[in-house]
Each structure stands twice: as C-alpha cells, then as structure tokens.
C-alpha cells in the first residue's frame, strides 16, 4: 500500500516538474524584455525548486504505514 502511494506521489511530482520545465522554457524563450526575463525566470525557478524540495521532505518524513493503519482502524 505504501509503495503504491509512493509511486503515485512520484508520478504526480514528475508531472509537476515537467510542467514547471515547460513554464520555464516559455519564460526564457518568448520573453519580450530580456531584463524582466531573468528576474521572472529566477523567481519562478527559485520558488518552484523550494516548493518541490519542501514537498518531498514532508512526504518522506511521514510514517505512511502508521497513518494508514490508524485511518483503517478508525473506519
């Protein structure tokens, strides 16, 4: 159960990372003003990487086996 959850999570994370790469590509390739391009691209990349890393940290710090056990016992 936990391994299934982890695979699903990693797939969702991969989808998010690919979407973020496409967004960054557009910001870099089609920007009309180069000065603004670097600021927006830097801001987007920094916050996105921070969000992804913090998300992974939180996800892998959770004891999913225990949590699932507790939830199934309640129901």
């Amino acid at each position: 159960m936990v391994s299934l959850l982890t695979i699903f999570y990693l797939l969702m994370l991969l989808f998010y990372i690919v979407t973020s790469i496409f967004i960054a590509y557009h910001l870099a390739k089609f920007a009309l003003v180069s000065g603004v391009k670097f600021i927006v691209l830097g801001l987007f990349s920094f916050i996105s990487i921070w969000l992804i890393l913090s998300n992974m940290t939180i996800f892998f710090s959770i004891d999913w086996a225990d949590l699932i056990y507790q939830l199934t016992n309640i129901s």
Partner: protein
Amino acid sequence: MSIFTSFHFDGQTNDEEVLSVIHRHWLNILASFVPVIAMSFLLFFGSSYMPELFPSLRQGEGLKLFSLGKNVFAMIIWALTFLIWIDYYFDVWIITTKRIVDIEQKGLFSRKVSEAKYDKIQDVSTEVSGILQTFLNYGNVMIQTAAEKEKFAFTQVPNPYGIKDTIMKLQKSHEHHP
C-alpha cells in the same frame, strides 16, 4: 525614439523598431486570476482555522499531513499563476515601423505568429460594446488585410481608438514613403 526599444521578438529585423506592444486589457487577466485568488484565500484561512477545528492536525503525523496538503495547494497555486500569466503576457500584438505582428499564445502548447505589412492593410475598424468596455475604454480592433491571414483581430485591448489611429497613420505614411 520609442519606449519599447528594450523589447525584442523572434524575427525582428535590425532596421525594425517596436512602436507599441499591446496586451489584452488588465480586466481580462483579473478575471482569469479569480480562481487563483480564491485558492490563495482558502490556503491562508485554511492554514489558520483548520488546526483550530481539528486538533489532530496540530501535532505528530496529522501536522505533517496538513503541512503536505498546504504545500501541494501552494504548488498548484504557483504553477496556475504562471500558466495564466503565460497565456496573458505572451498573447500579444506588436506594432513596428514595418508591420503588425500577432502572436497568439494558448496555454503551453499552442503558439501562432502571423504578420501584416502596412501596404497590405485594407481596412481598420474598432468595436467597443458594453458598459464596462465603454467606461474602461477597451474593445476590439479588426484589421482587414490582403495578406495570407485576411483578418487580424486585437481582442479586448485597451484604447482601441488610439490603436486604430496609430495603424492608420503608419499605413498612410507607408503609402507616401513605401
């Protein structure tokens, strides 16, 4: 000299100057951002009040699960913000000294670039209809051309009458000095 000298687009020639860069009216992006603003409020108030309502979210695995939920919500808001921004900011009309360039951006995977030279323009008309459009001075500018793309439409753009005047002036100056 134009204020758009720092602007540059793919296919711009060395002797071509950008005179105007037109995006849709700000009301348009505001409407697109309503779900994002609502989600941000939900995240903010959810972070404050959910632990009050559900004490199990204040400690242990419950707290971690709640933090994960908030983080996922923030990630969605962040990506949505930029997806909407790309759709708005890169959907643009550029008026240069030589031509009009229409860049249509629809999401991440649809981008269409077309252009019309001033000597190909046959007719320019504007359309401002509705209370909001009249008061906020935004609407559509339609250009009939003899080019490959017969109709150019600047949709929901600010100051449509000013845009029409600019195009007509440029068209006339090209008639006299082609």
